[in-house]
């Protein structure tokens, strides 16, 4: 099968043809597509299913970096809903670096599947076996430590295990009964070398940030359960990594995740923002809306959510205080940390929380309401937002590209985040 044979990505065939460059899907989205095709043959899925929560779409193109914006624009024209996703475009040079980096990293065969517009997919015999059995195999690299201290970007081998845990979460989302990771091997790894890695992570804000990115993704997409993940959580708590992140590992903890800067800071620094659901969401919503309306200079106040929500939608949850730090100034913008990171600016914040009541897998959306903006008009502008549900948790992803850093303000933007869904009736 070619890349354009994956129905939600068929527009990429046209992009490749028009631009005259082969496109190759790699990473998590390629892995999830293969799992869907292998474990649920004939099942319907859309691009949102393939790219949940903080996932991005890793796409190699066979040309120089100068063509990146052109490729991205073509994608935006040809792939429906492209704006709702982060496209991590990898040019020829970065693809070569990434391949070299992969050679020295933990092998998770399912994460090495490749779909191209111009040639058959690359699926190793190990990956094929994993697709058939529902297992998630992994293989440590014997020389990882030497590589990690070889002047490259800071790294910790445990991230390879965490990636495998995330692949397991993807596998379980497709097939809840899949056997997943070999727990004995994973626990042995953790017990033998995990402590040292976690101590190393504790000493480097960039590694702590990366730990949170992987940890938050697993927690959001599969919950905190599972012997390996529970052990990892316990160890990270004991070492102090979770304390440094101010994260109390309660099963009902909301999770916030955003772009990590080179200095190890998240664009939305609250990693466990307050999220209200049920009746508390209603009162929180009224408070948020009246604050915002007041700042607009209007005298009107609302007394019930339905006064301010499209009747086709209903309120699901409210995160009343979300902080979004200012974008770095041009001179401070860092180059990509590693070869896998997109050089383009797509940026999102993600939130997951334990949901209550009936919630729609495909009907979630959200609205950011920045506080303290005086206004001569009264319309609300939306930014692309989408959500989903995995088990007991729901997630939402909001695009930040169109959020201004407030040229006249020196501080961060604070906003209420209102999460809505299509009505069931």
């Amino acid at each position, binding site marked *: 099968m070619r890349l354009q044979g994956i129905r939600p990505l068929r527009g990429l065939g046209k992009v490749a043809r028009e631009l005259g460059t082969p496109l190759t899907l790699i990473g998590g989205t390629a892995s999830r597509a293969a799992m869907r095709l292998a474990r649920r043959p004939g099942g319907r899925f*859309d691009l949102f299913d393939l790219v949940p929560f903080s996932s991005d779409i890793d796409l190699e193109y066979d040309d120089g970096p100068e063509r990146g914006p052109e490729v991205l624009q073509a994608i*935006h024209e040809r792939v429906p809903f492209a704006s709702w996703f982060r496209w991590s475009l990898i040019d020829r040079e970065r693809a070569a670096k990434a391949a070299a980096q992969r050679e020295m990293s933990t092998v998770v065969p399912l994460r090495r599947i490749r779909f191209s517009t111009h040639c058959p997919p690359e699926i190793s015999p190990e990956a094929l076996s994993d697709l058939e059995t529902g297992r998630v195999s992994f293989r440590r690299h014997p020389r990882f430590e030497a590589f990690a201290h070889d002047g490259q970007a800071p790294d910790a081998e445990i991230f390879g295990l965490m990636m495998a845990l995330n692949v397991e979460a993807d596998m379980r989302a497709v097939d809840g009964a899949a056997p997943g990771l070999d727990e004995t091997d994973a626990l042995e790894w953790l017990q033998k070398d995990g402590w040292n890695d976690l101590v190393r992570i504790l000493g480097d804000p960039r590694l702590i940030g990366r730990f949170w990115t992987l940890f938050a993704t697993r927690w959001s997409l599969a919950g905190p359960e599972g012997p390996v993940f529970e052990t990892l959580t316990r160890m990270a708590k004991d070492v102090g990594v979770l304390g440094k992140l101010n994260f109390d590992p309660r099963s009902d903890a909301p999770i916030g995740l955003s772009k990590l800067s080179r200095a190890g800071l998240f664009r939305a620094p609250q990693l466990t923002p307050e999220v209200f659901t049920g009746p508390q969401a209603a009162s929180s919503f009224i408070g948020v809306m009246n604050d915002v309306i007041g700042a607009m200079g209007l005298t009107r106040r609302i007394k019930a959510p339905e006064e301010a929500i499209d009747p086709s939608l*209903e309120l699901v949850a409210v995160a009343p205080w979300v902080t979004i730090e200012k974008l770095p100034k041009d001179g401070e913008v860092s180059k990509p940390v590693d070869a896998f990171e997109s050089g383009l600016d797509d940026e999102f914040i993600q939130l997951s929380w334990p949901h209550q009541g009936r919630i729609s897998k495909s009907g979630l*959306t959200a609205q950011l309401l920045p506080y303290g903006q005086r*206004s001569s008009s009264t319309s*609300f502008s939306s930014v692309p937002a989408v959500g989903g549900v995995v088990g007991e948790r729901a997630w939402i992803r909001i695009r930040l590209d*169109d959020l201004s850093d407030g040229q006249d303000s020196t501080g961060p933007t604070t906003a209420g985040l209102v999460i809505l869904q*299509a009505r069931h009736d």
Partner: protein
Amino acid sequence: MIEPAPRHGLREVRPGSDSHAVVVLHGIRQTAQDVRPFAEMMSDRLHGPRILVYGYDHTHALVRNGRVLHERLERELPKGRIDLVGYSMGGLVARLAASEDAASRIHTVVTLATPNRGSLSNTELTALGQIGRQAFETLLSPLIPRSEGVKDLTKAREIMRRRRKRLMNGDRAFTLDGDKRRYVSIPALWYSEDKAVFQFGPSLTMSGLMAAFKLAALKVKLEAMKKSHDGIVTENSNNLTLADGNDWAEFHLTKPGASKAPPLCHAVIDDCDQHDHMSVLREEAVAELVCALIDTADWRNLKTDRPGLVNARLHPFDI
């Protein structure tokens, strides 16, 4: 979860004759309240028919909304002629309601700024999600990209092709009588590449909240669109009368009846160029055009019957 207090269905704007009703439908991210002022402008110009607005759940599938509208019209307006005026997505709902049953009493379908001929691109979807809305001043209505309603906007052509096939039911000679069913499209431009300086249309005003959003990215996306457009759809996408060498949709089944009056028309007035996708609903000249189209039995006579519309362009028979 907050208890629903919905509000979909028919609402009367002005009472009138039992034998003729005109129903106005809103677009995506809107409610019946949004098109009520437009319906009121029509009331001032269209004497005789009963005028109503209709609210539907824009997150639902287009086909479902069309079927529900058809059923409600049958039940709640049980006799006489019915005309539908569908704004934006409402135009597609109107078309599906009219074609739910070949024998439907729906006579004239007016689509205003409706993506009649194709599918929305991603850029258009993004714009659709980002334009400000001012209906209730403070009504939140962000786009739900995974909702059936939005997904259907990306495959409207396919949906209408299937509807044509269903109406034909294997009869290759099947037609609809143009004296009983006719369709007209009206565009609403917003952004034109002819404009020297990028300007947001009247509805995309920069509120304080909007100021927190930088619109440069949206501007780039809109400018990247190849043709003049209204921020949502190109005019060509609105136009029901363009020949593409392939009769693919349900409206192509309508053929001139005994009167020989044309059953398809694309009507444009200069005022359409001055408005955006939202503000076109505030334009009295557009309301006048819609009323004239409903009132005129043979659209070829529209300009002589209505001197105020002498500059209107009526495709395909007026060029």
